[in-house]
């Protein structure tokens, strides 16, 4: 069986550094941070750990319905989603991830857009 991205980069030690860095960047971003203002830190970290592990082929599974449910009330719009993609890409690059692997993780993220963005194609009002 082919090894997942997460396995090839060393599993949890790698994941934890990526998630921490990503979490910091998200909360430092003027566009993204407002979405998480009222989210409990424990829940946010739990979700990000599972979701990033999932994107890298780790031991988590998200159905599209579950993703939609998690993001339903957040009202994420397309521009915010694009900032999130750019932030993730930057984080992975910071950890010297191979271009092909970055592309694969970003692809995994991008195909889930319909279940993360509140109203695809329509600029929704940013929360917060």
């Amino acid at each position, binding site marked *: 069986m082919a090894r997942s991205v997460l396995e090839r980069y060393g599993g949890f030690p790698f994941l*934890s550094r990526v998630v921490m860095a990503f979490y910091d960047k998200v909360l430092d971003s003027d566009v993204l941070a407002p979405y998480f203002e009222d989210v409990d830190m424990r829940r946010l970290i739990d979700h990000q*750990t599972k979701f990033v592990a999932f994107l890298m082929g780790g031991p988590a599974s998200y159905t599209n319905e579950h993703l939609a449910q998690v993001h339903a009330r957040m009202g994420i719009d397309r521009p915010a989603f694009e900032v999130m993609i750019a932030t993730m890409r930057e984080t992975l690059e910071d950890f010297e991830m191979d271009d092909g692997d970055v592309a694969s993780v970003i692809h995994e993220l991008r195909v889930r857009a319909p279940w993360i963005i509140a109203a695809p194609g329509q600029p929704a009002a940013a929360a917060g």
Partner: protein
Amino acid sequence: MDLDRFNRLLLESAGVGLALADPESLAIAFANPRFTEWFPSCEDTGSRLDELLVGLDVERMRSRIADDRPYRVELELKANRRTMTVAVDVKRHQGDGSDLLVVECQNITKLKELEYMVESYSKMVERQNRDLRKEKERVEKLLLNIMPRTIYEEWKEFGVTAPQRFDRAAVLMLDFVSSTDMDIAADPPALVAELNDIFTSFDRIVEQFGGERLKTIGDAYMAVCGVPEPGADDPRNIARIALRIVRYLHRRNATQANQWICRIGINAGPVVGSIIGVQKYVYDIFGPGVGLAARLEALAAPMEITLAEDLYDLIRDDVTVHERGEVELKGFGTKRIYTLEGMSDLAISSHDDW
């Protein structure tokens, strides 16, 4: 630079939040810049420790301090859109004519974030392990349906199993006389359900006497005692199983519309047991022990159990039989054959007993 000035600089630039409070009134007497940054309202006149640090258990703090022990608590606060976790240590300092509470606050946000992440990840891994374990159990259960446990253990450990010879395996072959005559077209699912029910009952009887069901082919059923672990009682056990199967069918037929009439051949003889197949595994036995059992089954009258001298000689003291004389059996020469009628604990000679 004098020591006072150095100490003041240290206090102001430290990453640790420091404050002094009155042990009785809890009024803040002093706060360094870091403490003020985290708890801005401490600059208000008369602000008290218990008002600033929401979540502080004043009773517990006072009792700890009375015991001359530090009080420690973790508090969450919002700073610049982020949730910060601060570890607060409160100690009492007495001396030099002063009596104060020293409040020391450390930013442990990163530690907390990491803690939550480890928690989240370990739950994920535990869940995955649980799923894998379940899957493994499911596969194991399936494999145990097609091979005995000891063979499975060997196969699991070494990836292969060596064919084994058993000199005196006790084999039972059963076939139904009438099931092919039943009206299969009328209700196939019902027929299959009945057969399933019957074979399940056979399995229980076989298990009860330490035997192993090897396979079913259509409505034929094959079981063995002494494979893969031979025991002294195998020949007697195969006779016990055969008798109980016949009794079970008699009882069942008495109350059901479909009559299931079997023929049974039992034998004890040499067989080879092995896993057959590369992609599709099945544990099977073959050899003269099996061949003779099949011949004997064909010779059995409906609802009767046939055995030959090979097995009879091993269990003659424990069974009652009806001798049927010598018969020429293809591939086995001339054999004296018998119909099994009963054993000390179960007789089927009189049908009134059913």
